[in-house]
């Protein structure tokens, strides 16, 4: 009995995999944009927080030289030295820089005399993102200028930083995991949904129904095919991230990482089968799947840190299974932590089971029709 079950499941899985592999355009359409997104995120991160700025030093005195050195070393700008004010103005006008920092002609003299010495910061304040970066970065450099004076510094208030985690994670690394989870969701929904809907659209559902196998066997085979495709894609991105040094789980955390990928892939594949069996047409299945994957990606904190969003958004996210997938992957890969892993696994497992149940129900009801 079990032998027949496994043979039938194997045959259905193999058939769906072969159909999928015969459509290289579909595979490319799924993988290429994700790779493009990863590349774009990596490129974008190089500019985040370090805006291009022109520095004009109109004073040759020692304090002006020191200030200029500190601005150079501050690692908060991408600095271009301008030989004159007019050159800097041209750079600002041509949008080569966000701002011009000008150390005025009498800067050293005024400091020596204890008089106010303002550093002019001319900002192209077209949006708050870049403007606030500059507003934070210039005082940062000024603070470093005073710190360099040691005990003689008039600023006695200092900052004692303690970090909650052992390592800092780069912004683009942080966004890779939600992107991977979105790929799993999209792939599972689309491949599962289309594989089920295709049976109705091409009327092969009748043949499946008339075959001497249980309906549970058919559903298991279809979910398995979609799962293998989806998990394979997820694994590909994870290994790519590993090779590039972006996502490198360590030791035992490889297991939790792979387990989460398995659960998310299973959840999305089963949900895809349920959707495909329900709608029975490939085009609406695709449209709804992509919309759903997009919504779930954002609502599970795809481009932000969910914990820092407003409470009502967090409340919504608590009902999105992908939230738990993102969390578990972040903990395992970035922080080598199993914090709330039990909850994450439980939620994802229950979601996957519910999705499989929905798939079974949907398939059975529509096969019967």
């Amino acid at each position, binding site marked *: 009995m079990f032998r027949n079950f496994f043979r039938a499941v194997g045959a259905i899985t193999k058939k769906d995999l072969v159909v999928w592999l015969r*459509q290289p*355009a*579909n595979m490319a*359409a799924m993988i290429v*944009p*994700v790779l493009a997104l990863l590349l774009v995120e990596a*490129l*974008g991160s190089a500019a985040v927080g370090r805006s291009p700025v022109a520095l004009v030093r109109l004073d040759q005195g020692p304090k002006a030289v020191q200030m200029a050195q500190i601005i150079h070393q501050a690692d908060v700008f991408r600095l271009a030295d301008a030989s004159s004010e007019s050159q800097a103005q041209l750079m600002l*006008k*041509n*949008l*080569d820089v966000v701002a011009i920092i000008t150390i005025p002609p009498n800067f050293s003299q005024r400091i020596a005399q204890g008089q*106010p010495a303002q550093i002019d*910061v001319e*900002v*192209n*304040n*077209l*949006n*708050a*993102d*870049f*403007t*606030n970066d500059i*507003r934070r970065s210039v*005082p*940062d450099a*000024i*603070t*470093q200028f005073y710190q360099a004076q040691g005990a003689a510094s*008039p*600023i*006695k*208030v*200092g*900052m*004692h*930083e*303690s970090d*909650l985690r052992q390592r*800092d994670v*780069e912004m683009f690394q*942080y966004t890779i995991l939600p992107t991977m989870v979105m790929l799993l969701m999209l792939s599972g929904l*689309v491949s599962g949904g*289309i594989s089920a809907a295709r049976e109705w659209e091409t009327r092969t559902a009748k043949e499946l129904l008339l075959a001497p196998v249980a309906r549970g066997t058919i559903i298991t085979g279809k979910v398995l095919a979609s799962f293998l495709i989806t998990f394979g894609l997820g694994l590909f991105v994870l290994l790519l991230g590993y090779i590039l040094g972006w996502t490198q789980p360590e030791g035992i955390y490889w297991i939790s990482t792979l387990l989460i990928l398995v659960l998310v892939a299973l959840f999305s594949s089963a949900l895809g089968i349920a959707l495909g069996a329900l709608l029975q*047409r490939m*085009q*609406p299945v695709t*449209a*709804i799947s*992509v919309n759903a994957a*997009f919504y779930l990606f954002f*609502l599970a904190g795809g*481009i*932000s*840190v969910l914990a*820092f*969003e*407003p409470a009502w*958004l967090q409340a919504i996210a608590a009902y999105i299974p992908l939230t738990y997938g993102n969390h578990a992957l972040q903990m395992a890969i970035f922080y080598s932590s199993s914090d709330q892993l039990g909850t994450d696994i439980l939620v994802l497992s229950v979601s996957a089971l519910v999705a499989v149940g929905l798939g079974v129900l949907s398939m059975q009801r529509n096969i019967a029709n």
Partner: protein
Amino acid sequence: MAAITGNLRVIWACMKKDMRSALTERVFLIAGIFMPVNVLLMMSLFVLAGSHAPTAVVMHDTGPYAQAFYRAMDGAHSFSLSTANAEDAQNLITEGKVVAVVTIPSDFDARVRANEPVQIGVQINNLNTDFTNDIRRAIPLSITSFYGKAFPNLVTVTPHEIDWYPQTTDYIPYLGVSILVISVMVGSLLQSGTSSAKEWESGTIKELLLSPASRWSILVGKMLGAIAVSLLAVILVVAVVVFVLGVWPTHWDEVIWVTLLSLLIFIALGTLLGTLIKRWQPVVALAFALSVPMFFISGAFGPISFQVPVTQVIAKIFPVYYAIVLQQHAFHSFDLNTFGVGLNAAILMIYALGLLVLTTLALRRSTIAH
């Protein structure tokens, strides 16, 4: 004259046929129309929420200097502040509810008054460098601005900001306009790409090409049909940007022609993709999935010249970049590159013409091959 009338009839017939076909796939049509709005709302929602770092401040001292320091932090353009006792603050950061806990020690006022060193405790939930670096920079900014106000004679070096524009445009009004372009791209690619690919997939392209109608009139008819359907989504998205996000354009006429020109480009691109790929599934997947990388690469967050050189080169390959530049000018009068409105528009027109030619060539080549 008869030839012109004949071509117009073909265009009208193809357009009508494609619009009717779109109406038969209602779920797809509705999803396609609302997808751009979804993109707009979702991206706006999370950008809005993520602009200020939630921070708990433990005020062990409530003296005037401590209060002044709190105000300096509030004005640092970085924090969403709340006060808490030490225990609650620790719980908040452990539970991941705040990015940082700033602790002002009990002897803060006394030490500041006596000009003695004093350390402010800053515990950071260093989840990622974006938030962490914001905090690392915003605390020194608060310290410097606190000293600048409390002890102007001691701390004499201060920044003097000169702004180019009378007011700084906030995250949502700026990004909303960029997202509008991406939304137009997704909607147009989806509509024209599927309409074109389905002709090949269902084999009806043979009938079209075997008919005595000219190739270009078939193409124009199909594209006009896609434009008419996509226009619904575009109107919806523009309405959301203007009436929901409250971004009122400074040049309405520019908004209209830039949107229509963008629509034409993306419809032509979708038709080209559909003709080349000949299968609607990968076209749909590409249309949706390209939206996110395009959003990040095309200068949605600010002038592309502020990015690293490689990003600038890549961005300038795609028409999305020029469309964003023009829409930002139409809505906010911003000049995001040095080309001016005319040259940016000319570049977009070249894209439109180029894509139309490529689509025609692709259609002719496919005809020979099949």
